[in-house]
């Protein structure tokens, strides 16, 4: 039986934990709003890019000698898996679920006899993955000092990927991140970055876009494709990182909300125990006094 003082200390410590989780929840909520706005603001660009790409890609895709970014470099042996996670913990199952999905894919690739390389974005994923795939991890991109995620951050990553691709360090690149759906639901998504899959054109859109007209290309169709494709990789990475940031805050908000509620329950329980033992102590004391008086 813990003493009254122990119980009191315990209650106070849970109370201060609850204060912290509550504060974290509120911070996450406000950050979530900002992250969500950023993700929404980036959407038009990505959408336009996709529309342009699907229009262009469809006409070029079937021709031989297309850009390696579009049709691949012919082999399919070395896979680069980019795992985007958060820089901070305490966000529920966010990092775990991304890492789990990535692990499943990596194990599958290894079982198929492929060579796997891993690039971690965010140190939380690295912390988990290094135990299992230590030597396969080629590097970690640290974004912990980035306050507001800008396009340049994503571009730095994509430029690096493109450089590696040009140098023939991998054949296929896929990216793991969590797509933001709501504060409660984040969907872990795998996206192939290189070679770029051609997005399907929605039927209605196609008619509106083409209307029988033939595009004029300046300088030339291939030159344009050559500039768009690398840029598209950057845009996709940027989009994924923004989605990830929003998901992280959403997951943290939910996790902290739960933690706050659990702390509240715990305080209630401990307070009941505390009151009971206080009453028991008083009763014992009274019984002792009465017994003492009667004995006289």
């Amino acid at each position: 039986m813990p003493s009254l003082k122990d119980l009191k200390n315990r209650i106070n410590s849970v109370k201060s934990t609850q204060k912290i989780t509550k504060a974290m929840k509120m911070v996450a909520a406000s950050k979530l709003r900002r992250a969500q706005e950023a993700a929404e603001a980036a959407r038009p660009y990505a959408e336009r890019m996709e529309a342009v790409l699907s229009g262009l890609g469809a006409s070029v895709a079937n021709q031989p000698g297309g850009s390696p970014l579009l049709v691949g470099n012919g082999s399919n042996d070395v896979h680069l898996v980019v795992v985007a996670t958060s820089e901070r913990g305490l966000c529920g199952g966010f990092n775990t679920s991304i890492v789990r999905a990535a692990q499943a894919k990596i194990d599958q690739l290894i079982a198929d006899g492929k060579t796997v390389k891993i690039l971690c974005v965010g140190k939380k994923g690295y912390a988990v993955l290094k135990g299992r795939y230590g030597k396969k991890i080629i590097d970690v991109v640290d974004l912990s000092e980035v306050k507001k995620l800008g396009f340049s951050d994503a571009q730095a990553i994509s430029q690096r990927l493109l450089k590696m691709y040009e140098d023939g360090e991998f054949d296929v690149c896929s990216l793991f991140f969590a797509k933001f759906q709501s504060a409660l639901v984040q969907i872990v998504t795998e996206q192939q970055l290189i070679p770029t899959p051609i997005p399907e054109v929605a039927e209605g859109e196609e008619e509106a876009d083409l209307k029988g007209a033939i595009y004029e290309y300046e300088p030339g169709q291939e030159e344009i494709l050559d500039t768009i494709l690398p840029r598209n990789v950057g845009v996709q990475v940027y989009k994924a990182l923004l989605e990830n940031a929003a998901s992280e805050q959403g997951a943290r908000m939910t996790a902290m909300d739960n933690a706050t509620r659990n702390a509240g329950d715990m305080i209630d329980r401990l307070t009941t125990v505390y009151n009971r033992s206080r009453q028991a102590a008083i009763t014992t004391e009274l019984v002792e006094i009465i017994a003492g008086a009667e004995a006289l």
Partner: protein
Amino acid sequence: MSQALHFELVSPERLLMDADVASVVVPGTDGDFQVLPNHAPVMSTIRTGIITVDMGGEVKELFVNGGFAEVNSKGLVILAEEAIAKEDMSKADIEQRIANAKEDIADAQTAERRLHAEQELAHYESMLSALN
């Protein structure tokens, strides 16, 4: 305006402009071209420079840094890597930044930092040349 060109300017960070305008002058890689309503479909890469938007009398100038333009039956869409309204940039400010970047290159301790500063310098210099 019965004849209006639907113009959208998008940067990766946000949608900067979405309006019906009279005409837009685009700095294409192969030379500037003007887009009027009912322009034939064109797709072009753009170089760093100024796009001039004629909003039916009022003229707006924006600085864009790389990207591409697409004209289709719905209008003109410019996807720019970066876009800033010209009135938001002052020559003195950019010159100051160029001086700062040059200093950074001189002080840079690591190769990485130097590279970063050099990129910045090139960026601001292209801005300045576009302004002149």
